């Protein structure tokens, strides 16, 4: 009786084991055979969301399965990252994330509920967003050199920022140029518009997605973009390096990650799709409308990019005097 039961149990266990072992192989061959969920740490309709949705849409066309956007805003995006770090590594949980979470969070917060290096497998880094340094439209200042000279002469300057990337960009700008400025935080770019346009703020580093229209229509004057190369959204604006801030490169970039234990075959498939999208002619065109530049990094390049940025974030967070949480 007893042994019979044991046999049944053993059979059951074996068949379960066979099922479990068999599934990934079959799943990898047919992946994806059900909708894929993309987690994003920003609310729907935000600049990040518009960008992410473009890629999700293209992935949908390539994979012939729906890609569902799960907007999980909160804790500057860390809630979405935590969610994917803890989710099933089956290729159906994908994270679209910015470097501020992957490179910055470990220095900005004391208890980060994920490890950006150990918990994730990189797929590709796909876009860079140009932040712009702007001044009031009627300001007599027309270049970064003039701005630095004026800041150094006036001493008690004030600079606005709306997020940590902008705050740290300001810090880096201060460090390299030696110009003094005190930073003041705003919740949204819209909140800061009054103060930057009437000259209350001496300068501000602003998200290119929002600034594009304001700069083009003369509400703000752009002095430099924070990316290493010029942005097609601001074709006449020099980069920080061109404007004389040597070695300045600090801008948000976006990447795709999956949980670390996701099968390599699935990761490779995703990577191939991401490269295909990067090479589509409409991709740079679309990215320009949201102030972004296409990246076509491989998984390895994306990983190297992240590792190279870690010390930069650590140093800047310390310099900006942001208290560890």
């Amino acid at each position, binding site marked *: 009786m007893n042994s019979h039961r044991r046999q049944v149990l053993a059979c059951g266990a074996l068949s379960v084991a066979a099922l479990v072992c068999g599934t990934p192989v079959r799943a990898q061959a047919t992946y994806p055979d059900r909708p894929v969920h993309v987690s994003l740490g920003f609310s729907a309709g935000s600049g990040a969301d518009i960008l992410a949705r473009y890629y999700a849409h293209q992935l949908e066309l390539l994979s012939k399965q729906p890609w569902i956007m799960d907007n999980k805003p*909160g*804790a500057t995006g860390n809630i979405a990252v935590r969610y994917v770090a803890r989710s099933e590594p089956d290729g159906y949980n994908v994270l679209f994330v910015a470097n501020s979470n992957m490179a910055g969070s470990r220095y900005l917060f004391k*208890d980060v509920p994920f490890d950006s290096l150990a918990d994730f497998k990189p797929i590709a880094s796909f876009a860079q967003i140009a932040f712009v340094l702007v001044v009031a439209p009627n300001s007599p200042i027309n270049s970064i050199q003039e701005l630095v000279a004026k800041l150094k002469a006036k001493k008690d300057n004030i600079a606005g920022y709306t997020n940590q990337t902008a705050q740290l960009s300001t810090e880096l700008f201060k460090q390299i140029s030696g110009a003094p400025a005190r930073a003041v935080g705003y919740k949204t770019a819209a909140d800061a518009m009054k103060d930057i346009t009437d000259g*209350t703020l001496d300068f501000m580093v602003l998200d290119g997605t929002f600034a594009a229209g304001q700069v083009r229509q003369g509400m703000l004057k752009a002095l430099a973009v924070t990316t290493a190369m010029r942005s097609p959204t601001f074709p006449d604006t020099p980069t920080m390096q061109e404007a004389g801030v040597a070695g300045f490169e600090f801008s948000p970039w976006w990447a795709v990650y999956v949980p670390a234990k996701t099968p390599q075959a699935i990761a490779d498939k995703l990577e191939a799709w991401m490269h295909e999208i990067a090479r589509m002619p409409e991709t740079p065109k679309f990215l320009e409308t949201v102030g972004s530049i296409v990246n076509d990094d491989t998984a390895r390049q994306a990983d190297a990019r992240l590792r190279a940025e870690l010390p930069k974030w650590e140093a800047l967070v310390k310099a900006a005097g942001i208290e560890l949480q």
Partner: protein
Amino acid sequence: MNGFEGIYHGFSIALEPQNLMWCFVGVTIGNLVGVLPGMGVLSAVSILLPLTFGMKEVPAILMLAGIFYGSQYGGAICSILLNLPCHPPHAVTCLDGYPMTKQGKGGVALGITMMGAAFGAAFGIVQMMFFAPYIAKVAFQFGAPEICSLMLLGLLAGSTLAKGSPLKGVAMTILGLLLGLVGTDINTGVERFTFGMIDLSDGVALVGLALGIFGIAEFLKSVNNTAPVNTAYTNVRMRDMRPSKAEMKEAVFPILRGTLIGSLCSCIPGTGPTIASFVAYAAEKKISKTPEKFGHGMIAGVAAPETSTHSSVQGDFIPTMSLGIPGDAVMALLLGALIIHGITPGPRLIVEHPDIFWGLIASFWIGNLMLIVLNVPMIGVWVKMLMVPYKFLFPSALFFICIGVYADKNSIYDVGVTLFFGIFGYLLLMLKFEPAPILLGFVLGPRFEENFRRALIISRGDMNTFVDRWISATFLSLCVVLVCGQMYVRIKDKAPVPATIFGLAALALVGYLNIYVFGLIVFGIAAKFAIGSMTKKPAASAKPAETPTARIAGE
């Protein structure tokens, strides 16, 4: 293109069959979203945003905008009938709307709401047609010191929002301020009172707080009443729904004042309909000759905040459309939709894309008309909803609350927050604390603090920045007038405990003192009073709690 040419052009666009259809779809969805508790307009717009990617830009914007203002029409319904603030701007409508329902005047309250809505919206649209550029200029006068002073005025004026003991009211306002502190500090990045939970690092969700302390608390309170509570006022006849002449007369001036406050609030960046409706209610109570009747079903207490919400919602479009600067998160979404369609929102939108600007304005007229046609005949149906037995009605409302709150951020944590505040709100009700001032403190407090600190950083630490600028100075002098007025009345009446003054001083000091300890002390004292009076004699305790209110009435 002036206002008349513009609107003519706009109607030619908005009346195109396709645009008309999407406008109708938008307002209908909005109306439904407004009725569903917890289902925020933000989540509705963001869910439907991808749908518009394949549409042309004009119908896309008309539809998304329709959801926004359409939801305001639905929002008042549950507030008035079920004490469920489905939508934060309508939380304050619960205060007098629900008592009206209890008196069998739910239909009247809804009728008044519709009148106010129509008027407020119409005013907002006219304002946008003719004065958009000027209003955008006014908006640019409001920097950190001005907003800070305005918030202080709002806090002072609203500190008497609650009925019952003023001390308890102040304690609740401070509790609201404390709750508003939870989350990441914008200037230093320090996380306050998050207890290591990253889900709290953006603070407590307003929707969850409002639904918890009003809706769920009320549910928990009524669930113990085994007797069927609401059969008495569900049998509403058709003619009971139409406001009488006297009631209309009572509503006229609150509607006018609400419109003004709403349009003012819409001019000030970041001051959306929620603040507008709270300020309108507080102002109405301050002006009223019978403030003691507020909270017991005053028509003015429904008319003013509702009108204010609608006029503010329409006004919200002004900075968004004329400057490309979004007034709130929903407006940021609309701008996102424009960007997707390759249109750069900015100060030249009106000139470069007159189709969108004027088409939108014309669709406001059409959409609001549709909403009134949709809603007025429905009042009767809504009121009938109360005839659904309690045991079905409230569990299903609870169900929708959970779904709505979850959908807001795809977060189960917020559902927990809502339920927590539900239980907490129930305890407050048991101890006879009015929950409304919590919301006031919660909404105004963080904006006060944020702008106070920003103003001081910008002025390099000079406190004079608050009096050097005339708009800010005006608000501050109004604060002084308010405080002195209260003191004068107190001294004249020789009140034994100048609780109000004490509370007002407490509010003013909140920025400096260790407010956590301070708040707890006040809360503790008030709680002691409450428990003391409850344990003595329940019957007798009601009276001392009522008298101070009556005294404030004289002010």
